[in-house]
């Protein structure tokens, strides 16, 4: 067999083994976070502080994006539905799209870009500037003191951000469909109220946001903690957080959707 092919096959094998090893390492790290969450949960102030940085500071991008997504949905929904004389169902369309899919997915993608990347960069820089090593030398576990509070802050913030995204999105749809175009306000709200089922639509949406919150934040803290302690290492880790989180969100969304909404009329 030509030498080049052997080298190629060896390279692929090496990458596969590396990826599996890294996945195992990430899983062990995730378990470690859960095991060492006691300190953060006892000292909830540590988590509250991080909720401000990951959750509250993400509000602007979430609210503005939610408003525009809702407005676009209202406009597109009206354009399509009015062909069949069903423009009064635009509220239903906006609400279901947001609650089931767009709210959780788009909010999670924005959260990964805004907060996930910030978490990775912060932890990565703490590592590069020896802050984590200093903490270890002070007999303080960085996983318990730095990683776990950020993880739980992300997990707690995500459902609230997605809920706000959907709420503002519905308001954006209302602005376009009712205020601008003139769809009947009563039909808009009453049809939405009839069509949206709390168990299937709202609860399933919340479950999705929780899963996305865990996935995005776990990826973000792992990439930060595992980053090479150099400028290049931190920038690479930040990029990996956004790319991996986005792919994880879309993949998980497909799996969750197929489990939650399969066979629904």
């Amino acid at each position, binding site marked *: 067999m030509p030498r080049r092919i052997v080298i190629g096959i060896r390279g692929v094998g090496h990458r596969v083994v590396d990826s599996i090893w890294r996945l195992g390492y990430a899983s062990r790290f995730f378990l470690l976070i859960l095991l060492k969450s006691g300190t953060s949960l006892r000292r909830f102030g540590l988590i509250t502080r991080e909720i401000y940085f990951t959750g509250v500071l993400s509000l602007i991008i979430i609210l503005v994006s939610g408003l525009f997504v809702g407005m676009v949905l209202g406009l597109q929904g009206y354009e399509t539905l009015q062909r069949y004389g069903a423009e009064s169902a635009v509220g239903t369309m906006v609400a279901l799209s947001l609650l089931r899919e767009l709210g959780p997915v788009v909010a999670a993608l924005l959260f990964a870009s805004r907060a996930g990347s910030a978490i990775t960069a912060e932890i990565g820089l703490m590592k590069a500037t*020896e*802050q984590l090593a200093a903490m270890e030398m*002070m*007999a*303080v576990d960085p996983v318990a003191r730095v990683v776990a509070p950020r993880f739980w802050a992300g997990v707690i913030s995500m459902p609230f951000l997605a809920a706000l995204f959907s709420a503002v999105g519905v308001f954006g749809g209302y602005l376009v469909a009712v205020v601008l175009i003139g769809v009947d306000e009563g039909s808009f709200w009453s049809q939405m109220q009839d069509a949206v089922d709390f168990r299937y639509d709202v609860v399933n949406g919340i479950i999705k946001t929780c899963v996305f919150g865990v996935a995005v934040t776990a990826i973000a803290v792992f990439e930060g903690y595992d980053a090479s302690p150099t400028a290049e290492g931190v920038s690479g880790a930040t990029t990996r957080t956004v790319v991996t989180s986005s792919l994880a969100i879309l993949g998980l969304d497909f799996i969750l959707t197929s489990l939650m909404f399969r066979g629904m009329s």
Partner: protein
Amino acid sequence: MTPEVLIEIKNLNFSYGERSVLKGLDMTMSRGKVIAVMGGSGSGKTTLLRLIGGSVRPSSGYVKVAGKLVHELKRDELFRMRRKMSMLFQFGALFTDLTVFDNVAFQMREHTDLPESMIRDLVLMKLQAVGLRGAHNLMPAQLSGGMARRVALARSIALDPLLIMYDEPFTGLDPISLTVIGNLIRRLTDALGMTSIVVTHDVQESLKIVDYVYFIADGVIAAHGTPAEVRGSVAPFVHQFVHGEEDGPVSFHYPADSYASDLELENGFA
């Protein structure tokens, strides 16, 4: 009377993969002394501190701190031991999201149940010792390199440790800050009765404040002695290092093929 030994290092070997960094070191460090560990870049000085602190395990041999084998300690025992030791990192490693005050208070809040009023008094006393009480509200980004190193020093003495390890404390400091940090190390060691290990390249400044010096070259102890012995040494390595000479046993050039062959001049000029 012989002073009590705090750190005992015996036949210590350490490798990063295939690369051997430390080869059979033997050292003893007594309580209440300032000990300098000197050597060129990459000679394994910082690795030695990491071995003493238990961040890495030796390939063979051992480090004993206060009679305990560091590499045999379980994680909680190691953390208990670390509460009695401190490390000053090269650039301070201050927590950038905390103020100067909170940086110094960090360990007190993590490891003690002291009331906040007492923590406040203790923090201000530590900051007073390094001359930065007035800077307690500043963020680390607002400090100069020398000030950051002094805050880190205040943080490292927060719980009155038995041992402080200083990793290149003089690097990148102006002459005034350099003298201030040097004097602080000496004064704090004497006042608190602790042991200080100073890893440094700065021969002149460290010889003024230390009690004993170890020179490490190529992973082994090339020489050791008191500052007076070091200054008077005629050993080629010590002489070259202390006087900063280019010629001597330590080569300026990284190992390479012959210069002539790299410039393709081996066959003479055409």
